[in-house]
């Protein structure tokens, strides 16, 4: 049954997550859905410009994309959501250590994957107001092969005093932070917060080594 569910496009979901983040950062204030749409569009152009720039080395690209990521994504917000109820159970020290690691975890998991980009076309298909005054910018990644279906990726965007930030990436209906909440919670509920944080630290360390040795390809 999982075959049915994941077959059409889920298998590409994680590959495109890095793009999703990068396509959607913010450095200005937009008061409405249309503004958010134009904003995402202009960012996607900039990101593609970096990815396609032949004069930049891979490590230079990674640096630029990481900068874009840091300016566009509210990793602190996402990290808190992802840890869910266990965030309150953690000590202040654990909380700040976790949030720092979570930020690195996202960056080192997804930014290096720009290498897998294969000329998909990026299209904004719709913009919707959702709960809490947030906006969902719905996009499609259209593969160049003629009979492959497009991949739907939505960005959830919140605004604070006119500064927009990405707080979730939803690929084919699967929310990154909701999946992480189950994923992290599954470990924390049986092994506890300190164990989880030590595993996260280990993971971040390994991801950094991987990037250093083979450019993020596994």
């Amino acid at each position: 049954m999982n075959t049915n569910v994941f077959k059409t496009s889920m298998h590409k979901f994680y590959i495109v997550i890095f793009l999703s983040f990068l396509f959607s950062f913010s450095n200005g204030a937009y008061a409405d859905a249309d503004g958010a749409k134009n904003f995402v569009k202009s960012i996607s152009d900039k990101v593609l410009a970096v990815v396609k720039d032949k004069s930049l080395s891979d490590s230079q690209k990674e640096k630029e994309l990481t900068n874009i990521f840091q300016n566009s994504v509210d990793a602190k917000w996402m990290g808190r959501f992802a840890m869910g109820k266990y965030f309150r159970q953690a000590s202040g020290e654990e909380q700040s250590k976790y949030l720092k690691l979570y930020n690195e975890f996202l960056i080192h998991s997804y930014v290096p994957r720009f290498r897998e980009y294969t000329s998909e076309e990026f299209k904004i298909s719709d913009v919707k107001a959702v709960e809490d005054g947030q906006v969902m910018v719905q996009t499609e990644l259209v593969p160049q092969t003629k009979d492959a279906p497009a991949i739907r990726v939505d960005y959830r965007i919140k605004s604070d005093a006119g500064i927009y930030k990405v707080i979730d990436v939803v690929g084919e209906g699967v929310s990154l932070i909701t999946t992480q909440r189950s994923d992290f919670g599954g470990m924390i509920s049986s092994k506890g917060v300190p164990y989880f944080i030590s595993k996260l630290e280990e993971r971040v360390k390994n991801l950094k080594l991987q990037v250093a040795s083979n450019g993020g390809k596994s």
Partner: protein
Amino acid sequence: MQFHKYLAVFFLCACSFSPSAFSEDVKQENSKAKSTPAINITADKPEDQDLGYIKTDGDPLEPVNRGIFAINDAIDKAILSPVARTYKKVVPEWGREKIGNFVDNLKTPVTVVNSLLQGDVDNALTSFWRFFVNTTVGVGGLNDVGQEVGLKQREEDFGQTAGHYGVGPGPFLMLPVIGPSSLRDTVGFAADSASNPFNYVGGAAVAGKAATEGVHERSEYLDLTDEIERTSFDPYSAYRSAYLQRRNDQINNGEK
């Protein structure tokens, strides 16, 4: 054939599991639809919010599911995933594309029936013409001519039909070999198999179809499973959550 017997047995077992959890789930979903808070007082506390996404943590059969997951994982690592990797390496992309089209085409009758059951005449007709065009011009379904002429594929199944009429997923189930499912989708899957005319063409052909489907589809989500292995801390929970979200999205046809 044996596969179907197996499914039937499992289906019966599944139905004897906690009906209360099943109805509770439906209730939960109904009450949720009505209550969207107008004012958000927890905006600064993301850990207390759910952003209106479906809940994916309920799991009354977790110990059993985890046991099956461990066995599945071992079988997958020993047999399924190596076979799928070899298939991906040996068969060129255009060949895999044709096999994928062929496998998809055989499922189209089930999509037509379920689109009609959901009152979605549009998708029923689109799927009907896809099947017609792909089977004839597309040489027995090897070529997705339908997609090229703008007949877009959207698969429907009995699990989605039940979901369309408000049936919640019920308890999450990890099925042996097949993988993540729910009570609703397991029943639906049994109905899909029973209603698919191509499952009645004879033993060897059905076995061949099942094997082809299995290998091809496993190869299609190698990237996903590799990625979950790479990024998750408790893969079982990640699969459960992703499965339930994806099914919910399919039921809403990606429009919610």
